[in-house]
């Protein structure tokens, strides 16, 4: 009935559609965006079809865009969203535009980015009514702080009150180099663009987006889509050379951290500086790789109370692969020229390419932050080239149906059969607002069930890509559940609170019936008392670790991550005997660390003497205070590590500083320590021979330049006497298996048998947790007996937790690669091309098959003879190790394994057996580098606090940075429960490496966090 309704349109290419009651007359209006290659700005005008009424059941419209000032002539628009940003009761409008040609990444774009462009840049229009009620929209883009320039390639805009302060914020995506924007509403008509403060990285080619609370914690989360395929074949076709230089050049030019994959930003609440924080966990959630994707839609399709995720994808012509770039086009051009055709058009070649249809994706929300791919099960596996999509209960049977638009094919309308298959409950809510915002856009609804679980939604129909959803709120919940309370928070702040709400109905609620606002029942309430307070500024522990600019990837081309960024070291101890714990923070090469002394007020001051400043050639990766010379005071041992120097370099020698009892340190004579010229990391202090002095185990990590070969570890027996410090390397004597146990990152002496001869536990990368038992000073590898052989991981820390259990930090689940016993991650090492050097091939499983991670370009760059074997990318696209190298080479290779990536607890089962249990998913956001056990909430039961991230992965993988630290509250009877950061107040982000707990004079506690290439953070533990 398009023609009858009068919405046929102006015939130019249309893009996004947005539905809203713009003139507040109760009838829904339609805004249609336009774009395309037109010279006449009049053709590039958007249309606003104002509903004039309904006749014989058919609404009819009139295009009044120009009168309202919303026609935006000359703009290339993608989508528009109507929302009340100034809370004056009428709907304003944000117009998302895009540039007319794509800007290649350029470094010096200061001028372009700071020059407004009203055709390509995004715009904000404020709804102004004059005295007689006439509506006119005013462009307030620049005054409101909206970023507006010609580089913009906006593909989606979504509105949400992200930080729960009652004012709508905006998230816009931009394809190509220009970054996304997060506009925080400042409440005064102005927005502050705050992406860098809140998001740690974003999608590189951000397409569609959606904002919804997917984990039912009351805070809206953000998803953006990108182009990373799920399968190895397509990934390998797209992957070119390593992009380290380009990535960092763009980063330095202000384009921020961007990786090509879908990003799922979990809303973690507002920290005490007032910044909203997100953890990007798309890989952990298994929704990061869906190929060239357009429209993400969070919606509860199976009515189980958890929002599922639909993703539309597809591309009409596959011209993104590297063969197209390097061979198909240039060779066709040359061939055409040889035949005399000088007018070869690439576009013509593109048109001839076959269309590659992919099936869309639909993911079932498992309720534990992750999703499972149910595309086939739920009936959406038809291959199409899809983009825009919308959900609505088209047949009014209580479940959400789907409409999906396709290229060159009819649209798909999927009927949801939930009502027949699952028979769960639903609740549909339609809202009538007071004033001009008749549909109450921006209203929030909080549904609390009898069992305490909650669901939260905001009424903003514009979501996904170029689409509008039905302007109503739809909730599903399981058949056995029932509603305890429904709260609707109207845009004005008034509230409607209802109990006894029946399932399976459509409720029509009006704002005029609402009551006054109560204390924040909505999204993110800020609890009065948080468990931690950031006291960095006032602590006096002002230290910023500064990395050198050594780039491991330049010398080891196939390295999956840098081994030169393990610092800073962090050690605590009362060095001056005043009863107050002091802190040493170690530095990288060139900038050695500092000792801070705690005073009676609990503040820190740099010690006057810093003798280690003379030893600036070492990379100080670990340190410990202990009494080396048995004179009752704490000496300082600093471990040297890193990847910068060659194996055997004197710069790897550790340093020992002897305390005079008053906190003044002098370097021990050179013969105090045996030569230990390997790159090391771990250190453990214990009296292994039970002779009354403290011995050391120093763990070797990686042989520089030869990943993943381990470097030598050292068991040092303390032979100090009469005040002369001396340690002897007794590794080969006492336990030769300790010389090269692996790439050790962490070590701990634990007296498991309570016989005063402590056992040694080691953790490291691509090695199992290793246990050495201790019989009267003789150490023996009992890893196998302990059942630990397959507990290989990327172990990063070990901490004792009382009882005989151990906390183990590992790499986490939030990576492209996953590990299990049946599908381990592996590194294959051999001299593949007989050139005298070994090369590591990092492999992991994708869809059940094991592939090398390296792209064709990366592999060929390092293993040069392969350039003859894999001229084309498609030759390499399915290659597994056995397709690349002969059997004999593979048979002779050394294989390192990782079968477990979870952090968790190693339980001592007695009789020398140990058992591992993983922590819940919330503890697997990133690499865990520190674990502290204490009663942080003052309830008498010990809790566990973990922190850690790992930034220096390859640039294609991007930073592993989702962790903001986590408090796991101990529950009576055993077990731990993760505590929401908004409740705990724990926000430890950044490239965290070390964590210690310090007591202050009043008995209070401080957490000191050391981060790589970043400032130390200090938190006060509030509970007593």
């Amino acid at each position, binding site marked *: 009935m398009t023609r009858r309704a009068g919405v046929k349109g102006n015939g130019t290419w249309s893009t996004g559609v947005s539905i809203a009651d713009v003139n507040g007359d109760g009838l829904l209006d339609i805004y249609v965006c336009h774009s395309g290659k037109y010279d006449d700005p009049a053709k590039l005008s958007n249309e606003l079809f104002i509903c004039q009424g309904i006749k014989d059941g058919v609404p009819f419209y009139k295009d009044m865009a120009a009168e309202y000032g919303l026609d935006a002539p000359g703009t290339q628009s993608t989508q528009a969203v109507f929302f009340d940003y100034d809370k004056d009761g009428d709907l304003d409008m944000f117009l998302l535009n895009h540039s007319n040609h794509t800007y290649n990444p350029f470094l010096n774009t*200061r001028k372009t980015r700071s020059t407004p462009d009203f055709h390509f840049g995004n715009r904000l229009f404020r709804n102004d009514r004059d005295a007689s009620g006439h509506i006119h929209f005013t462009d307030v883009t620049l005054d409101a702080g909206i970023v507006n320039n010609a580089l913009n390639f906006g593909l989606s805009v979504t509105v949400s009150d992200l930080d729960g302060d009652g004012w709508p914020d905006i998230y816009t995506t931009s394809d*190509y180099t220009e970054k996304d924007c997060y506009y925080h509403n400042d409440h005064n008509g102005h927005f502050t663009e705050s992406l860098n403060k809140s998001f740690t990285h974003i999608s590189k080619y951000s397409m569609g987006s959606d904002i919804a609370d997917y984990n039912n914690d009351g805070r809206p989360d953000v998803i953006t889509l990108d182009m990373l395929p799920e399968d190895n074949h397509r990934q390998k076709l797209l992957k070119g*050379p390593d992009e380290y230089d380009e990535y960092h050049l763009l980063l330095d030019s202000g384009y921020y951290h961007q990786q090509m994959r879908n990003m799922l930003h979990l809303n973690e609440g507002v920290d005490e500086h007032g910044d909203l924080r997100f953890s990007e966990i798309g890989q952990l959630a298994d929704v990061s790789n869906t190929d060239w994707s357009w429209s993400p839609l969070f919606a509860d399709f199976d009515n189980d109370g958890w929002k599922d995720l639909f993703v539309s994808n597809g591309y009409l012509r596959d011209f993104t692969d590297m063969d*197209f770039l*390097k061979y198909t086009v240039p060779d066709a*051009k040359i061939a055409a*020229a*040889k035949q005399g055709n000088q007018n070869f058009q690439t576009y013509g070649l593109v048109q001839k390419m076959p269309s590659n249809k992919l099936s869309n994706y639909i993911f079932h929300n498992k309720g534990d932050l992750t999703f499972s791919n149910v595309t086939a099960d739920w009936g959406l596996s038809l291959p199409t080239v899809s983009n825009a999509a919308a959900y609505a209960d088209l047949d009014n049977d209580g479940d959400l149906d789907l409409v999906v638009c396709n290229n060159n094919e009819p649209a798909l309308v999927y009927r949801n059969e939930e009502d027949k298959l699952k028979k769960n409950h639903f609740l549909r809510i339609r809202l009538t607002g007071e004033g001009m915002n008749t549909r109450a856009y921006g209203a929030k609804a909080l549904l609390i069930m009898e069992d305490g679980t909650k669901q939260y939604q905001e009424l903003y129909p514009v979501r996904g890509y170029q689409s509008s959803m039905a302007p109503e709120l739809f909730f599903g919940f399981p058949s056995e559940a029932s509603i305890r309370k429904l709260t609707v928070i109207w845009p004005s702040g008034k509230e409607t609170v209802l109990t006894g709400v029946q399932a399976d109905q459509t409720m029509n609620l009006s704002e005029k019936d609402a009551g006054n606002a109560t204390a924040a029942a909505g999204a993110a309430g800020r609890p009065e008392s948080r468990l931690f307070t950031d006291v960095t500024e006032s602590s006096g522990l002002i230290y910023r670790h500064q990395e050198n600019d050594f780039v491991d990837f*330049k010398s080891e081309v196939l390295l999956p991550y840098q081994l030169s960024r393990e610092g800073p070291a962090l050690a605590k101890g009362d060095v001056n005997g005043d009863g107050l714990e002091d802190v040493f923070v170690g530095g990288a090469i060139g900038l050695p660390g500092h000792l801070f002394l705690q005073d009676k007020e609990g503040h820190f001051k740099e010690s006057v003497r810093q003798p280690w400043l003379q030893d600036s050639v070492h990379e100080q990766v670990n340190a410990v205070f202990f009494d080396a010379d048995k004179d009752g005071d704490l000496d300082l041992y600093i471990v040297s590590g890193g990847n910068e120097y060659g194996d055997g370099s004197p710069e790897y020698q550790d340093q020992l500083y002897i305390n005079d009892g008053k906190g003044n340190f002098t370097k021990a004579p050179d013969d105090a320590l045996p030569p230990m010229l390997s790159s090391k990391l771990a250190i453990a202090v214990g009296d292994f021979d039970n002779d009354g002095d403290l011995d050391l185990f120093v763990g070797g990590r990686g042989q520089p330049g030869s990943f993943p070969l381990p470097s030598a570890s050292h068991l040092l027996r303390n032979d100090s006497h009469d005040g002369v410090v001396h340690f002897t390397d007794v590794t080969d004597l006492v336990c030769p298996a300790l010389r090269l146990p692996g790439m050790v990152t962490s070590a701990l002496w634990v007296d498991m048998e309570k016989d005063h001869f402590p056992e040694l536990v080691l953790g490291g990368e691509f090695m199992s947790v290793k246990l050495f038992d201790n019989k009267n000073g003789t150490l023996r590898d009992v890893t196998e007996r302990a059942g630990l052989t397959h507990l290989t991981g990327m172990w990063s820390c070990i901490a004792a937790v009382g009882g005989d259990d151990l906390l183990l930090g590992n790499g986490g689940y939030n990576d492209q690669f996953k590990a299990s016993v049946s599908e381990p991650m592996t590194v294959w090492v051999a001299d593949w091309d007989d050139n005298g050097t070994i090369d590591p091939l990092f492999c992991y499983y994708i869809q059940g098959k094991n592939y090398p991670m390296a792209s064709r370009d990366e592999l060929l760059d390092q293993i040069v003879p392969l350039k003859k074997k894999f*001229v084309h990318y498609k030759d390499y696209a399915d290659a597994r190790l056995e397709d690349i190298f002969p059997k004999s080479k593979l048979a002779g290779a050394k294989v390192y394994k990782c079968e477990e990536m979870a952090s968790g607890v190693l339980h001592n089962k007695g009789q020398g057996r140990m058992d591992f249990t993983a922590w819940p998913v919330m503890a697997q956001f990133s690499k865990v580098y520190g674990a502290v056990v204490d009663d942080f909430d003052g309830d008498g039961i010990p809790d566990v606090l973990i922190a850690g991230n790992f930034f220096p992965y390859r640039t294609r993988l991007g930073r592993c940075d989702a962790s903001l630290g986590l408090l796991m509250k101990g529950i009576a009877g055993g077990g731990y429960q993760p505590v929401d950061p908004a409740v705990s107040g724990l926000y430890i982000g950044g490239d965290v490496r070390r964590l210690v707990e310090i007591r202050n004079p009043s008995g209070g506690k401080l957490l000191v966090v050391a981060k790589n290439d970043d400032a130390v953070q200090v938190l006060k533990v509030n509970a007593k």
Partner: protein
Amino acid sequence: MKILAYIIVCLNTYSALGAGVPGGAVLHRAEKALTDVIVHDIFSPPVASRIYLYANVAAYETLVKAYPGDYRSLHGQVKAFPDLPAPREKIDGGLSAVYAFLMVGKKLVFSEGMMEDSLQSIISGYRGLSRSVYDASLRYGKRAADSIMAWADKDQYKETRKLPRYRFIKKEGKWIPTPPAYMAAIEPYWNKIRTVTLDSCSQFRPAGPPPFSKDTGSIFYRQAYDVYVTVNKLTQEQKDIANFWDCNPFAVTMEGHLHYAIKKISPGGHWMSIVGIVARQKGLSIKESSAAYTMASIALFDAFIACWDEKYRSNVIRPETYIDAYINEGWRPLLQTPPFPEYVSGHSIISQSTAVVLSGMLGDQVAFDDSTEVEFGLPARHFSSFLEAAQEAAQSRFYGGIHYRAAIEGGLVSGDEIGRWVMRRIRLKQ
């Protein structure tokens, strides 16, 4: 009768001069086949020059031994050069030479299949030979190829593959990767490659670039400004010249998510093609042609080593980077800036070096129509001498917006010295 005629035709397929030393046609064909694969496989300019050198030297040495008399071997003239024994069987020198050429080429390119196809096609023209001569010719050609490859193996190419990847220097005035693809710097260690005639890579070190400065009164700024202004108002002729000598083996175009490359012959390949054009024009025999190709490839090879030595020593920022940062951020050069530092201009030094050598061998007033770029969509250009072509090649880089004047002038001076040095150190004709 028909069979005899057929045999005679086959025997004469590559024989322009009848009995005795054959004509150059088969060698020209082999050069073209090699160039096609070099273009397809996207070899950088210095690496391409290495392929041309060893392939041509293999052919030349074969011909010198197969047709002894008026040409001298490189053995004794070039350090550590092998002494290929003379053939002991009856062979067809032309077949052996072109076989040696293509075998070396096949070893050094990536697309061996493509090379093999060309090889089979080219040597099929010799099917008329007797079985024993045919086989013996191939055997001798292989022997020559192996001998040259053993010599090539010691030129440090293998060793330079193992060195750490280049880290660009984060300092004002230093080179950084350029748009649109920000490709990694090409061959930062090329100065370690063993030269043919030069005593060292820095024997004819250029004068050095003007000191870096952002000061608008400085020489550096004025040179950059000169590039900026010139490119902004290029005449059609200047554009044609820039495009004619673009010779970019891998230029990337990015239109949104549509990325594609345009491949062209490298500057070394362009000069090898010029040798072929003039050799055909003058009706040179295969020996004369091979000598010209060989000398040219030596001049190219040594000049590239000297050039790359200076490029990474002076490490100068490209005009595009400088102009975007200090003059006009939206400015783009006409050509795509290639991925290596600026001073000196490769085209300038290698073109002059080669032109000097070709002038010495074939004459300094040799006019020719350079149709090299026709298959890449650019019309032929006429030059009245090799040196005139070299001058234009050098100047083209300024019009293209990818070099300052100093790099061109410095390149021409050093190229001239290198060319003369090559002529002094190596005499091919008795």
